[in-house]
C-alpha cells in the first residue's frame, strides 16, 4: 500500500505515557472495596487476580502500542484523500492489535461478546488507553458509545446486525448531533428524515465537527453514524428529533453486500489538538441516496436515546481529562527530580552552594503536590462514580431502594466528572509545562501536546457551562433533592466519624466548612429559584460545580488519608507502600488546607449575587 508518511516514522516513535497503577489498585481494593462484588453474579468470572492482570496487560499495551503513536498522530494528523480520511501512520495496526487483544470489550456485556467486568475496570481501561493516545482512543471509544445506544434502544434485528460488529472492530461508530447552527442548542438541528414506503428514512443534511466521521480503521470499512434528524412534520426543538442509524455503507440483514450510502466527507478540521482524531464535516444525502433506520423504530425519542450515549460519553470525557493530567503530572515529576537548577532555599546566602534538582524548590513542590492531589482526587471521584454503577448493577432487582440510591449518585456526579476533570485536566497540563520551564513548551517533551489535546475536553459533549446548568438546574433538584441530600449526608457521616482524628482533625474542620458552604449555596439557589432570580444562576453555576466537585474530592482524599494512616502502621518504612501511603496523607492535607478554603470563599462570592455581567449593556463591553 502507498504510504502517506515518511518511511522511518514508526522506527523513531517513543512512548512517553505514564500511569499510576498502584493508585488504581488502591481505589479498587482498598477504598471502594470492589472485591465485595466479585466472584458472584453478575461479576462471577472476575476476581482481584485477573483484574490486576488485565490492568497490567492493558498498561503494557498502552505504553508499547498506543503511546509511541501519540506524537506521530499529533504531528502528522489526518488527511482526506479521494474523499476518504486517512488516519496517522500506525493507527490501523494499533486498531487491529487492540481488537485482537480484546481490551475494548472488558466491561461489555457477554450478550454482545464482552467479558462483563465491573464498569470500574472499563473506566480504568479507558484511562490507560486515553492517556497513552487520546486521539486514537476516540475512534474505538465512539464506536463503543454508539453500540451501547443501539444495544439499549435498538430493535432485536438492529441489535443483532449492528452491536457486535461495532464492538469487535469490524465497523466504527459516531454520534452526529452538531450542525453549523446547532451546537449547544441541539434542538435547532435542521437535518431531515423523510419516511419511505419500506419503512426506511431518507436522510438529508450537514453535520459538523463529527469525531471519527470517517476513517480507514474498521476491518470491514464501515461506520455506523447515529444521526439526530427531524422527521418531516415533527415539532421544532429537541422534542421533534429522532435518532437514526445511518451506516456509511448500506448492508443487508447479514451485514454483507456493503454499498455506498451517500454519506460524504466534505472536509476535516485543522485543530489545536487531538490531531490524530479526524473531526469531519459530513454531508448526508447530497444525491438523495442516503437511507437511515429509526433506532428502536420509535419516532421523536432521539434526545432521550442520545442522552444515553451522552452520559456514557460525558464520563468518557472526564476520563480523558484525568488520563492526560495524570501522565502530565508523572512526567513533570520525573523531570523535576532530574533537572538541576539553582541552590536550595536553605542556602540562599551561599552563592557556591550546590545545584539542586528543582523538586527541592518549595514552589515546585507546591505545584507537584497540588497536581498530585487533584489527579488522585479526580481519579477517586471517577472511580466512586463507576463503583456506584457496579453496585447499582449488582443490586438491581434485588434491593431496589439501594439501587436507586446508587443511580441517583451517578446522575448527580456525571456533570462533576465531566466538567471538573476536563477543566482541571487542562490546568494540570498547563501547570506541568510550568514545572518544566522552557523545556515544557517544546515538542521534545509530552506536556505541551497534553495541554493542547486537553483543551477540547471542556467543550465537546456539552460545554462545561452546559454541564453546570445541568447540575444546578436539573441534577440538584432531581428526585425531590434526595440525591443531593444523600451526597451531603454521606460526607457528613464521614465528618462526624472522624472529626477528632489525631492527625486529620484540622483538615476535617476545613471539610466541614466546605460542606456547610456547599449546603448553604444549595439553599441560596433554592431561594433564587423560588423568587424567580433565574438570571443569576448562569453567572455562578460553573463556580458552584467547582465547589461541589472540590468538596467531593476533599472528602474522598481525606477518606483515603484516614485509610492510609491505618495501613501505615503495618508497613515497614522500606516498603514502597510506605511512600505511597505517606503521599496520600500529604496530598489530602494539602487539598484540605489549600483548596477547600477556596470553596468557602466561592460561596461568599456567590452570596454577593453580583449581576453586573447581566447589567452591563452590550455596547459597553468595548469596541
Amino acid at each position: 500500500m502507498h504510504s502517506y508518511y515518511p518511511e522511518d516514522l514508526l522506527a523513531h516513535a517513543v512512548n512517553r505515557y505514564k500511569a499510576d497503577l498502584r493508585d488504581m489498585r488502591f481505589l479498587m481494593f482498598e477504598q471502594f472495596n470492589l472485591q465485595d462484588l466479585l466472584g458472584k453474579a453478575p461479576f462471577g468470572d472476575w476476581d482481584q487476580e485477573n483484574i490486576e492482570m488485565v490492568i497490567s496487560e492493558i498498561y503494557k499495551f498502552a505504553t508499547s502500542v498506543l503511546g509511541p503513536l501519540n506524537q506521530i498522530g499529533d504531528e502528522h494528523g489526518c488527511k482526506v484523500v479521494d474523499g476518504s480520511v486517512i488516519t496517522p501512520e500506525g493507527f490501523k495496526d494499533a486498531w487491529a492489535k487492540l481488537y485482537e487483544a480484546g481490551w475494548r470489550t472488558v466491561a461489555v456485556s457477554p450478550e454482545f461478546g464482552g467479558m462483563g467486568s465491573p464498569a470500574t475496570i472499563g473506566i480504568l481501561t479507558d484511562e490507560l488507553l486515553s492517556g497513552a493516545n487520546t486521539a486514537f482512543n476516540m475512534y474505538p471509544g465512539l464506536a463503543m458509545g454508539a453500540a451501547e445506544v443501539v444495544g439499549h434502544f435498538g430493535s432485536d434485528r438492529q441489535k443483532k446486525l449492528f452491536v457486535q460488529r461495532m464492538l469487535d472492530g469490524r465497523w466504527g461508530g459516531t454520534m452526529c448531533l452538531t450542525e453549523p447552527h446547532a451546537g449547544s442548542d441541539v434542538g435547532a438541528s435542521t437535518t431531515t428524515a423523510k419516511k419511505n414506503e419500506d419503512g426506511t428514512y431518507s436522510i438529508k443534511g450537514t453535520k459538523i465537527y463529527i469525531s471519527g466521521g470517517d476513517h480507514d480503521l474498521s476491518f470491514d470499512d464501515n461506520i455506523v453514524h447515529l444521526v439526530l434528524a427531524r422527521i418531516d412534520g415533527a415539532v421544532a426543538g429537541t422534542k421533534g428529533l429522532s435518532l437514526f442509524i445511518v451506516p456509511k455503507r448500506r448492508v443487508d440483514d447479514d451485514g454483507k453486500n456493503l454499498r455506498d450510502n451517500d454519506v460524504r466527507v466534505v472536509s476535516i478540521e485543522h485543530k489545536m489538538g487531538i490531531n490524530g482524531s479526524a473531526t469531519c464535516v459530513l454531508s448526508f444525502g447530497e444525491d438523495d441516496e442516503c437511507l437511515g433506520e429509526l433506532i428502536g423504530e420509535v419516532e421523536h425519542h432521539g434526545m432521550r436515546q442520545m442522552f444515553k450515549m451522552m452520559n456514557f460519553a460525558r464520563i468518557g470525557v472526564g476520563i480523558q481529562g484525568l488520563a492526560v493530567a495524570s501522565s502530565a503530572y508523572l512526567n513533570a515529576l520525573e523531570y523535576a527530580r532530574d533537572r538541576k537548577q539553582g541552590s536550595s532555599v536553605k542556602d540562599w546566602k551561599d552563592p557556591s552552594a550546590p545545584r539542586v534538582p528543582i523538586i527541592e524548590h518549595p514552589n515546585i513542590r507546591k505545584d507537584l503536590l497540588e497536581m498530585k492531589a487533584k489527579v488522585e482526587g479526580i481519579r477517586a471521584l471517577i472511580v466512586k462514580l463507576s463503583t456506584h454503577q457496579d453496585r447499582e448493577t449488582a443490586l438491581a432487582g434485588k434491593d431496589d431502594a439501594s439501587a436507586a440510591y446508587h443511580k441517583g449518585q451517578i446522575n448527580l456526579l456525571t456533570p462533576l466528572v465531566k466538567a471538573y476533570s476536563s477543566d482541571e485536566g487542562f490546568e494540570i497540563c498547563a501547570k506541568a509545562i510550568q514545572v518544566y520551564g522552557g523545556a515544557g513548551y517544546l515538542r521534545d517533551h509530552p506536556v505541551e501536546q497534553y495541554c493542547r489535546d486537553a483543551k477540547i475536553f471542556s467543550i465537546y459533549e456539552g460545554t462545561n457551562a452546559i454541564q453546570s446548568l445541568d447540575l444546578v438546574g436539573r441534577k440538584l433538584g432531581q428526585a425531590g433533592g434526595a440525591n443531593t441530600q444523600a451526597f451531603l449526608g454521606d460526607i457528613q457521616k464521614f465528618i462526624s466519624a472522624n472529626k477528632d482524628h489525631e492527625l486529620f482533625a484540622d483538615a476535617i474542620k476545613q471539610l466541614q466548612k466546605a460542606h456547610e458552604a456547599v449546603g448553604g449555596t444549595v439553599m441560596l439557589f433554592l431561594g433564587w429559584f423560588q423568587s424567580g432570580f433565574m438570571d443569576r444562576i448562569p453567572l455562578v453555576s460553573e463556580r458552584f460545580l467547582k465547589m461541589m466537585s472540590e468538596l467531593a474530592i476533599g472528602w474522598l482524599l481525606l477518606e483515603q488519608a484516614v485509610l492510609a494512616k491505618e495501613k501505615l502502621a503495618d508497613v515497614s518504612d522500606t516498603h514502597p507502600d510506605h511512600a505511597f501511603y505517606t503521599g496520600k496523607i500529604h496530598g489530602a492535607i494539602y487539598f484540605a488546607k489549600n483548596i477547600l478554603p477556596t470553596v468557602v470563599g466561592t460561596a461568599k462570592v456567590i452570596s454577593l449575587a453580583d449581576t453586573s455581567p447581566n447589567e452591563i449593556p452590550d455596547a459597553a463591553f468595548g469596541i
Partner: protein
Amino acid sequence: MFDAEPFPEEEESEARLKILVPIKRVADPENANKVKVSADGTQVTSEGLEWAINPFDEWSLEAALRLTENRAEKKRTGEIIIVGIGPNDDGMMRTLRSALAKGAERGILVEADDASLDSSVVAKILAKIAEKESPDVVFLGKQTADGDSNVAGTITAEHLGWPLVNYATQITVADGGFTIKRELDTGVQTVSVKTPCVLTSSDRILHPSSVKNGITPDDFAYPESDHARTAPLRDIMKAKSKPFETITLDSLGIEAETTVEYTQFELPPARSGETTYVESVDELVQKLHGDAKVI
C-alpha cells in the same frame, strides 16, 4: 496391513511438541530502584516488590509458544507446561497465571522458600520434573534478571544427560529435533540437536521469523517487537481454569541443600546526576577516557 486408524492422527501426534518452561518471578526490572538490601547485607529483601516474569524466561516462553502453535490459524498444536519454583504467594501465582494466559496448557508450582534455592537446587528440581513429564524440550531462560548466575540450564542438562544448546536465536524444527542458529561474538553458529534436549534463548528469538515449526506457514512473520506477546483478554479469563498442580520438594524427594552462599550484597552507588559541560570534542574525549575511563 490396512490400519483402521485414520492417517492424520499419527501425523499430528508427531508434530505435538511437549515443552517444559520454567518460569521465575523476579523483582520487576522496570522498578529495579525499589530493590533493597537487608540491613546485614546478606539478602535482597523482597518486601513490597512488584513482581514480574523474568524477562529471559519470557523469551523462552515466547519461543516455546511459537514452536507449539499454528500462528496463522491461531491454533495451539503442542503442549507447554509451566514450572514455577518458589513460595506460593500472590506474586508467584500472578506470574504463572500470566504465562498460562499467554497460551501455556498447564502449570506446576514447586513450593519452596526463596532462600533455600540456588541454581543447583533448581536444576535438580527441573531434572526431576522432566523425568516425570518426559517433555521433548526443557526451555529455560539463559539467566535470571536477579541472580544472573547463568548455569541452571547447563546443570539441568547434565542431570538429564540431554544435549544442551544455549542462546538460540533461530530455531527450525527438523527431523527428530531442531536446527538451531546461535549468535556468538565470533559469528553465527548452526547446530543440529535431537530431542529430548535443553535449550536457552537470546532476545533475538523475538525476531519476526526466528522460529519455523513446520506448522505455522514459513512465510508468516510475527510482529516486529522488543517484547514477547501479551495475553489477550479472553485468554486471561481462561487462565484460571487451566490445570494447575502444586507440589512440594518432599514429594519430589529433593532436599533443598544450596551450594552457593551469599555473603554480601551492595546496591550500586547512587547516580550523582551532576552534569559536566565540555567546550570541545577533545575535552570530551579527555573526560571520557582520562577521567571516567569509559572509553
